[in-house]
């Protein structure tokens, strides 16, 4: 499939899978070196950017996100902005004010989230790379559900300039693709210091020293609560890794079980302040009853255009930072984060990576998701959240398929700034893994 073929057919494919919210009008790739798409919380000057929210409908940013700008500078052509959970708030891309992406292996199932549209595009189109964003697992989860590779690099590796914030101390921009080699290639392309994002300026250079993955630790808690098919695929993958000469051992990581509550406290605290700016003034949607007092106008506007999950997280996050609760929740969560990091550091003194399945189950049907409580959905992230809380780089590789043919993923976590080990893990794994591509029917 040439770039021109993709450009002439992708709108039709999109009408079935809903991976894109906004798409390019161009049919001609021009002198583009490659095509790419980006999660819709990365600003693009030439395409509407909504972050999955009705409150931003119609918003055309004044600038490109740094990661998009670097892709374009390297010859990339942006073809679409990918559907997602509103502001990244979800695990299945169903918490959206816009369209919900469909799983390429079964359109009745979720792509995962919140970078669901990105994973879908990367799985469906040939030679396609998509930029995703992970706050608590939003790259690895959809990569796993859509049977592809996905990497969230170390916090601060890729400039967040132009990223519409969910939780600023957690958000990481990464890459999704059906090809393992793209992890190395595109993280090199978009990473590096950027004076426009001070948190990117402390990073050591990303090097190619040829460092290999030689050992991996499996935390005991990481193999509990798995569906039978996932457990089975993971066990077989461990055997395969051992046969590749990788030392795999089980370890205790006692702080991991506290990662989930700490993550939700910090992420929602930050999110509730980030979402405070959306009041129906200045940009995005601005219809409303102007005869109201400003605070009534803000409230009515926010009530109408934020989705249920966004409202839930604003309430949670506002509660956890109020006087009287701040020390009990927000301040305590900051301490838990330190102990989770310490737990990882101690494992990384002996092992190159921490290994678990990516998700405890495979992509659920939309009908199953609507039966889940918010808490059930939050709990589904228990394997991806710890690495995100610690800011450590992590990568999901496809490692099998369940009885319905739905993909299963396995997640490697490496020490801060050690993406190289993950690149090697993906590339070595790919050589021995037989990927079953989805049949795309239009």
């Amino acid at each position, binding site marked *: 499939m040439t770039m021109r073929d993709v450009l002439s057919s992708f709108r039709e494919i999109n009408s079935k899978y809903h991976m894109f919210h906004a798409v390019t009008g161009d049919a001609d790739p021009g002198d583009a070196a490659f095509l790419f798409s980006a999660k819709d919380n990365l600003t693009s000057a030439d395409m509407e950017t909504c972050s999955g929210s009705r409150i931003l409908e119609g918003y055309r940013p004044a600038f490109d996100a740094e990661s998009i700008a670097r892709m374009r500078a390297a010859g990339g052509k942006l073809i679409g902005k990918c559907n997602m959970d509103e502001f990244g708030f979800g695990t299945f891309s169903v918490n959206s004010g816009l369209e919900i992406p469909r799983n390429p292996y079964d359109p009745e199932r979720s792509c995962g989230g919140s970078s669901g549209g990105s994973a879908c595009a990367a799985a469906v189109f040939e030679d396609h790379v998509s930029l995703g964003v992970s706050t608590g697992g939003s790259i690895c989860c959809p990569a796993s559900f859509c049977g592809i590779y996905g990497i969230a690099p170390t916090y601060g590796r890729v400039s967040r300039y132009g990223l519409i914030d969910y939780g600023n101390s957690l958000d990481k921009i990464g890459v999704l693709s059906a090809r393992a080699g793209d992890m190395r290639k595109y993280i090199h392309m978009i990473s590096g210091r950027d004076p426009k994002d001070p948190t990117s300026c402390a990073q050591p250079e990303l090097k190619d020293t040829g460092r290999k993955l030689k050992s991996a630790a499996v935390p005991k808690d990481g193999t509990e609560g798995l569906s039978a098919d996932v457990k089975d695929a993971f066990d077989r993958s461990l055997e395969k890794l051992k046969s590749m000469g990788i030392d795999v051992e089980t370890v205790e990581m006692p702080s991991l079980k506290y990662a989930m509550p700490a993550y939700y406290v910090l992420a929602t605290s930050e999110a509730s302040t980030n979402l405070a700016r959306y009041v129906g003034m200045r940009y995005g949607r601005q219809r409303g009853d102007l005869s109201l007092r400003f605070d009534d106008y803000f409230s009515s506007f926010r009530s109408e255009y934020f989705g249920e999950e966004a409202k839930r997280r604003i309430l949670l996050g506002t509660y956890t*930072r109020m*006087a009287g609760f701040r020390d009990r929740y927000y301040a305590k969560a900051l301490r838990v984060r330190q102990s989770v990091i310490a737990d990882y550091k101690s494992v990384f003194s002996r092992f190159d990576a921490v290994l678990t399945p990516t998700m405890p189950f495979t992509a659920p049907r939309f009908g199953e998701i609507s039966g889940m409580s918010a808490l059930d959905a939050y709990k589904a992230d228990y394997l991806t959240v710890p690495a995100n809380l610690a800011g450590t780089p992590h990568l999901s590789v496809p490692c099998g398929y369940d009885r319905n043919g739905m993909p299963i993923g396995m997640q490697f976590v490496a020490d801060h700034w050690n993406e190289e080990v993950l690149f090697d893990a993906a590339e070595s794994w790919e050589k021995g893994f037989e990927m079953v591509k989805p049949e795309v029917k239009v």
Partner: protein
Amino acid sequence: MKIGLEIHVQLPTASKMFCSCPTTDAPAPNTHVCPTCLGMPGSRPVLNRKVLEYGIMLAKMLGCTVADTTWFSRKTYFYPDMSKSVQITQYDNPVGEGGVYYLDSGKPIRITRIHVEEDPGKTKRVGDLSSLIDYNRSGIPLAEIVTEPDLSTPAEARSFLGQLIEDIRYVIDLPGDGERSIRCDCNISVGKERCEVKNVTGLKNVERALTFEVVRQTKILKAGGKIERETRRFDEERGVTVSVRKKEFEADYGYIDEPDLGIFHLKEMSDRIKIKESPQKMAVRISAEYGIDKKMARQLISTSADLASLFESAAREFGTKDAVKWIAGPVSSNWKTMESLGISPEGIVPIVREHCGGKITDTECGIRLKSYMTGKEPEEIAGSSGDLDKIIAGYLDSNPSVVSDYAKNPKAANKAIGAVMKQSGGKYQSSEVVEAVKRIIESRM
């Protein structure tokens, strides 16, 4: 009665606190703006380090301990002129804490803390139902200085503020209209509960607002009522304070750390920054070192710090008496004229030196100093000051008691000054008259 102030000072940086927009006066509303100070989604703050430098300078001036590490916090509240609905400010670990500032009277005022933060935009009401927002001010850096409730009267609060502003202006080179860029939140309690009057601009208004509150709170207490803790605002036109909201405690802002900016280690920066001696400290030192009145020292410094140092070198060379006579006398009264003409003060000391060496007389010295500092011919000065001297001499001849009164209380000179001003019909500058009257009275003592 207890009064505490929260003073906001605009810091004189060239660009805003978190973006590169200029801080100069803008040609039109919403022209000095960018995605960052408008809070556009995806924009990000990058700290202007100059802001921390100014913060450290002020912390040192106020005798605060400069924090080894500092960071920023988010204060969340909804108001149309706050572009992100979040203000980037400091909560834990501000730049400086625990200082003391001395009033000219010697009374210590404890400084709780000093932190730096961004200013919101401005709301302009147009008609009864609508307002327009100008974000040119959004992101302008401010320092907030918080005092303990150590001030005991509105007048004391005003003189504290006046003195503080003068010091700040000198130490961080705040432009001349510094008072305009200073805003104050005034906390006052006559009884047990305090009220806060937000956002009062200017010294005079601070005193007016506080005085109004004293009267209001006293009346309520006398009538057996209770003061309710609340936030009020000052209506400048009517001279009254008006309730804005009841019992809104600070903690409602839900502070969290600002994750986009990280942590700043100030130790090295703080060690490197040396601040100029503040006028307040300089006045205390000069008055002690040369045995002159603190008020006179203060006056020299407030005219110009250069004048004060000229006084110091003259005092060292010629002794305090001649330094007071000449530097605090004609040199001081002609200083502003000299500055406005762009004349260098270099030629002043040689003239005084000639006088002290006995080469020229008192009168000649006075004439030559004025001639040098005003660029006028000595004959013109001699003529006009000769006339002025004659008027004064005439007045003192017929009112000899002024001289003896002056020995007891220097305020007695005011009577003569007023009469001479009236008699000369405003021909002479008041500073000139004051200087001449004092000089002639003293020569008669």
